[in-house]
């Protein structure tokens, strides 16, 4: 059944700071970078920051789970006079593609007129993102996980990748291809952290951080901020750019995935998956579309293996077919005209460009349907953007060219 709010709202402005290697953004602050991203997004949209009256966050409004955002502080620092909507998706980066959907809820309820979604990330030496094995004693729940020495998200997900290899014969060659194929998209991107082509020798020479995953299967750790502005499609007519219509958007998931790699209780086939089955089903039901209708896929790539599992769950290939699909060259931008292919992470993704907890994927999706991307897919009508795999909710969004 067609989604009641289909194409009624749109992303109309995007803004970002430079991207910095972890810790290198100092002496800038979280709010300094968030402010720059929001002001640039307003300028891109063609509105004044004083017109912002809604905030739709994710990652519990946490700046990389470290500092916290606060609507009142952002109003104070940026001079935003009134706010009628301030809400956040729970859990972590899995909500990034769903946050503009939260903005749709505020807009369609007439709580606000222009909603901003922002992430500003800074890791100073005393705070490291995603560290499971802290000096402090774990919670009672995490006492069933932390003593295993699975020290961070990549270590946790390596266990899922291993199960996928066991069940379906998936190989590390496919993980290498995911890293190389998306690395090939950054050579012409000025702000990307990793721009050099990645050779086989370089990949195979990387240390194994958590076998079967090596260092380059883990995403970058970067500082920076990204903001996007969502408004109604009606208002978007008066703004600077062609709007990126929110054609479908969903967040959530099913109990079989649940806390995912934080509990490891998922039955097969959910264990060796990305946890996106529910969100994928909802997106396709909302829109009547399927994977073959997508022109580009910006898939959350905190770890290479999880890209492969998303390709399966969104139906770009069959379950268990991810290895052969990837190795067939089907996710390369250069092969985008090949039948059955889908260019993935045309911006280089979290693995190569920058990791701002998925916000760069939203920006790239917007630029693709605007037709202004650096690595532009010709005649791009539909862009899929995802957030997660992570503890629920995970999320997905389909942007449509106006």
């Amino acid at each position, binding site marked *: 059944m067609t989604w009641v709010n289909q194409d009624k709202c749109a992303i109309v402005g995007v803004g970002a700071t430079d991207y910095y290697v972890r810790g290198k953004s100092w002496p800038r602050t979280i709010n300094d970078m968030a402010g720059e991203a929001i002001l640039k997004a307003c300028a891109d949209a063609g509105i004044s920051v004083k017109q912002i009256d809604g905030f739709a966050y994710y990652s519990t409004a946490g700046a990389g789970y470290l500092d916290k955002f606060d609507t009142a502080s952002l109003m104070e620092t940026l001079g935003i006079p009134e706010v009628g909507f301030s809400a956040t998706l729970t859990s972590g980066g899995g909500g990034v593609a769903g946050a503009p959907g939260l903005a749709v809820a505020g807009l369609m309820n007439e709580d606000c007129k222009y909603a901003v979604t922002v992430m500003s990330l800074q890791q100073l030496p005393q705070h490291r993102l995603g560290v499971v094995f802290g000096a402090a004693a774990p919670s009672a729940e995490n006492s069933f996980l932390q003593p295993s020495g699975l020290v961070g998200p990549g270590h946790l997900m390596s266990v899922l990748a*291993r199960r996928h290899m066991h069940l379906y014969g998936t190989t590390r060659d496919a993980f290498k291809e995911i890293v190389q194929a998306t690395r090939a998209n950054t050579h012409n991107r000025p702000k990307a952290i990793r721009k050099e082509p990645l050779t086989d020798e370089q990949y195979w020479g990387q240390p194994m951080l958590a076998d079967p995953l090596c260092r380059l299967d883990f995403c970058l750790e970067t500082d920076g901020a990204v903001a996007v502005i969502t408004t109604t499609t009606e208002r978007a007519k008066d703004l600077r750019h062609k709007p990126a219509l929110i054609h479908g958007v969903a967040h959530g998931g099913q109990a079989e995935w649940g806390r995912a790699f934080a509990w490891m209780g998922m039955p097969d086939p959910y264990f060796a998956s990305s946890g996106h089955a529910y969100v994928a089903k909802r997106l396709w039901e909302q829109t009547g579309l399927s994977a073959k209708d997508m022109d580009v896929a910006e898939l959350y790539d905190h770890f290479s293996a999880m890209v492969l599992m998303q390709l399966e769950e969104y139906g770009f290939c069959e379950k268990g077919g991810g290895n052969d699909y990837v190795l067939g060259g089907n996710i390369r931008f250069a092969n985008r005209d090949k039948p059955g292919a889908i260019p993935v992470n045309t911006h280089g993704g979290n693995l190569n460009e920058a990791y701002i907890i998925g916000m760069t994927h939203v920006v790239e999706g917007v630029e693709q349907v605007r037709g202004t991307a650096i690595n532009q897919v010709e005649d791009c009508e539909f862009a899929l953007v995802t957030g997660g795999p992570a503890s629920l909710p995970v999320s997905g969004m389909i942007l449509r060219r106006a």
Partner: protein
Amino acid sequence: MAYGAARALPGEGIKITTNPDTEPFWQAAKEHKLVACQCGNCGHFRMPPSPYCPVCQSTDKKWPELPGTGTVFSFAICTHNPKNGEPYVYVPVVVDLDGASPARLVTNLGGIDADDVKIGMKVTVDWNPIEGDWVLPVFKPAA
């Protein structure tokens, strides 16, 4: 590449906390008994222990002693002690617990070359003293 012998992480520095739902598991472990949380109403097993049975929503719990054996469901191989960064080969492992399906434990597998660990292999519980006079169940290959 060959990783060599895998050991459970050293117990010094490993901490846990408990709450009323999880405490019986850890008290049993102190006595080298492997138990799991079972619903007192419908018999469904769940780990980590939680307030409600996800099947029937009962809060009744039982803590039957298990055979102490299981099957490797998946694993990773890590090479550095997270406490100090020094080289240390260990195998974080997800174990399907015999007699308590679908409950699992996430812990370490030792007493084996890391290169020889396979999904599906049978393992048996071992006991690793950790901080606070608690004992952590870890696993070794079944005899």
